[in-house]
């Protein structure tokens, strides 16, 4: 990582916000509209189709709640990693990032068990448009989780060596955003029945 010569441009900060963090804010801004598009479409359909309630009933609230718990906890780990990075403690930051990654992996595990179960009961992507939305929205979110995990693993291994500690905060922001999306997916897909 450090072999790449970083241009002076990257080190400038006319706004006072570090470049990486500023970019993540813009990334989050553009993600809001992506999730907004799919969730907006879903909400409009859901309100227009009260009969979908009978499909929504079959979602597993407990799995959703467990995943919310896991993501909230991993968010806590991410913010603790950020705190450690602030104190220039790369080792500690890496430790918390690995815990965050563990949370993400647990989230994916719960998700796959849940989906396997649902697919076994015949609720597939194509069985009903409710389920199409369910799998698409949660699937897009899941892809974000996976991407976040990969990036976090790279940053954690750097942070352990004390390199680029400012990135810990940036990836944390992204992770909190992924968490917030789930905070809204949870009531939309699981609770509103």
């Amino acid at each position: 990582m450090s072999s790449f010569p970083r241009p002076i441009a990257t080190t400038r900060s006319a706004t006072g916000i570090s470049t990486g963090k500023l970019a993540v804010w813009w990334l989050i801004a553009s993600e809001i509209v992506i999730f907004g598009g799919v969730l907006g479409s879903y909400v409009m359909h859901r309100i227009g189709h009260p009969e979908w309630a009978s499909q929504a009933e079959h979602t597993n609230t407990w799995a959703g709640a467990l995943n919310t718990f896991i993501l909230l906890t991993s968010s806590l780990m991410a913010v603790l990693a950020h705190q450690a990075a602030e104190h220039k403690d790369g080792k500690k930051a890496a430790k918390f990032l690995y815990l965050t990654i563990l949370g993400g992996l647990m989230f994916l595990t719960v998700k796959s068990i849940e989906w396997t179960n649902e697919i076994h009961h015949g609720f597939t992507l194509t069985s009903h448009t409710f389920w199409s939305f369910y799998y698409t929205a949660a699937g897009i979110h899941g892809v974000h989780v996976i991407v976040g995990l990969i990036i976090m693993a790279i940053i954690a291994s750097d942070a352990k060596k004390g390199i680029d500690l400012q990135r810990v905060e940036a990836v944390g922001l992204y992770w909190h955003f992924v968490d917030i999306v789930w905070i809204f997916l949870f009531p939309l897909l699981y609770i509103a029945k």
Partner: protein
Amino acid sequence: MSSTATPEASGHSHDDGHGHDGHAHGHAEQNFFLKYFWSTDHKIIGFQYLFTGMFMALIGGFAVYAFRMQIAFPGMSVPGYGRVTATDYNALVTTHGSVMIFWVAMPVLIAALGNYLIPLMIGADDMVFPRLNRLSYQLFLLSIVVLIASFFVQGGAFGGAWTSYPPLSAKPEYNLTPLGAPMWLVAVALEFAAFLLGGINFVTTLMNSRAPGMKMFDVPIVIWMIVIASILFMASVGPLVAGAIMLLFDQTVGTGFFDPKKGGDPVLWQHLFWFFGHPEVYVVLLPAMGIVAEVITTFSRKKLFAYKTVIYTAVGTGALSFFVWAHHQFIAGIDPRMANIFSVTTLLISIPVAEMVFVYIATLFGGSIRLTTPMLWALAFIGEFLLGGVTGIFLGSSGADIYFHDTYFVIAHFHYTFFPIAFIAVFAAVTYWFPKMFGKYMNEAWGKVHFWGTIIPFNFIFIPLFLLGARGDHRRIYDYTHFPDLMKPGMQDLRVLATLSLVVLLAFQVVFLVNYFYSAFKGPKAEANPWKANTLEWQAPSPPPHGNFPEGLPTVYRGPYEYSHPDRQDDHWPQNSPS
């Protein structure tokens, strides 16, 4: 002025001495592949986008040649293509539309010029995320590979128009392109991903990496415009990205997001598409406007009239563009009451755009205008775009749109906007920045031949199409002989006139290509600032080396348009000149 950036200036001068120079040398001895295909240098990536865009323009141009020949001479074997069947025709129309917008206008106006110009014009040595930049181009290239592959798969290329309305686009039994349709959609989605990454890079670079002393209101208009356009793109494309995933599932696994039989709604796609599709018009318009601002100020030696007004109108246009999308759907089945609201917002958006054009015309007042090739292109942009702009009023007026919707009037209208944007302004940019890009001059005489050989046929293509549209010719019809009312005397003559003009226009592009590539290698050597312009890129050597400013990154003392300042002997005043 410079004091505002002191905390950063000190850090910068430190970097300047060490990191930067080592950086430039580190890249000196790369092999050809690494230098041109794996480079993270913003200028190389800009060139990659530019040349890829030019290549795609050839594809788009060939497609329009083939299907226009079919319209003018139904059933003929088109030289170089062969017989155009109905399936071919739809595929060609779709290819032309999507290629020209997604793979020509977007990469050239935003990605190529943005990459090349942003670091140079704000006095930085590169983009803030060079490797992200390279990834963005690679994704873009991948999207092209997918698109071109889709021409050769079973069933052929997608033929459901660039709007890709379901259910036609969603089901193979309707569109008969079981592979072409999903591949087209994947290509578009990859292209969006590439530009999202690029856009984040652009915005961050401008916000954080301006030269010391450069305030936001010292930034050249073209950079403002490219960045505003990137933001517009980021804010509008989201729903369509989501929609593309949904449509892809509809096509490949059989979900029913847009299938009324399964509880979906085809109208939803139209909204998702145009919610992006209309801001997209301004995404490409604004950079074109920015190019014109640079060129006309340089060649009329004038300060830009009301610099801040231009920025405010650009922001206003961008903001309003989120409220107008459904004017593409007036008669497409939306509730007629909504059409009233969208008609009002649509006509209101004409105000900031008109004001921008007025500002440019006012800039010419009191100037010292030299009609060089880039200036001719920039002026032609204003002159031609005006017609494109005013004809939009017909279509934005809901009542008149009932008749004009989906006719050739629409086609002529948006080509009077898009051709000036994607070609006239781009030619202005390419010829204006050519000495900077290659350190050589283009041939001026051949440049003017190409100019007139493009502008005159351009008008002879699209004025006939306005007339045909007013007489009821509707779009995407490969053979009008089935419609008695559309074969009245004179109508086919107009179609033939448009087609022949197109052939002439395409032929004249050869002049450009020869002039461009010959001059790039063999043209007379150009100095660093041949046009005596103020902006920072002209203060770097031509062509700029890796790292851009070998004598140290510049510090900025004033705005970009201080031409003919009364206190100065010189009629230009570079942004980085201390006095």
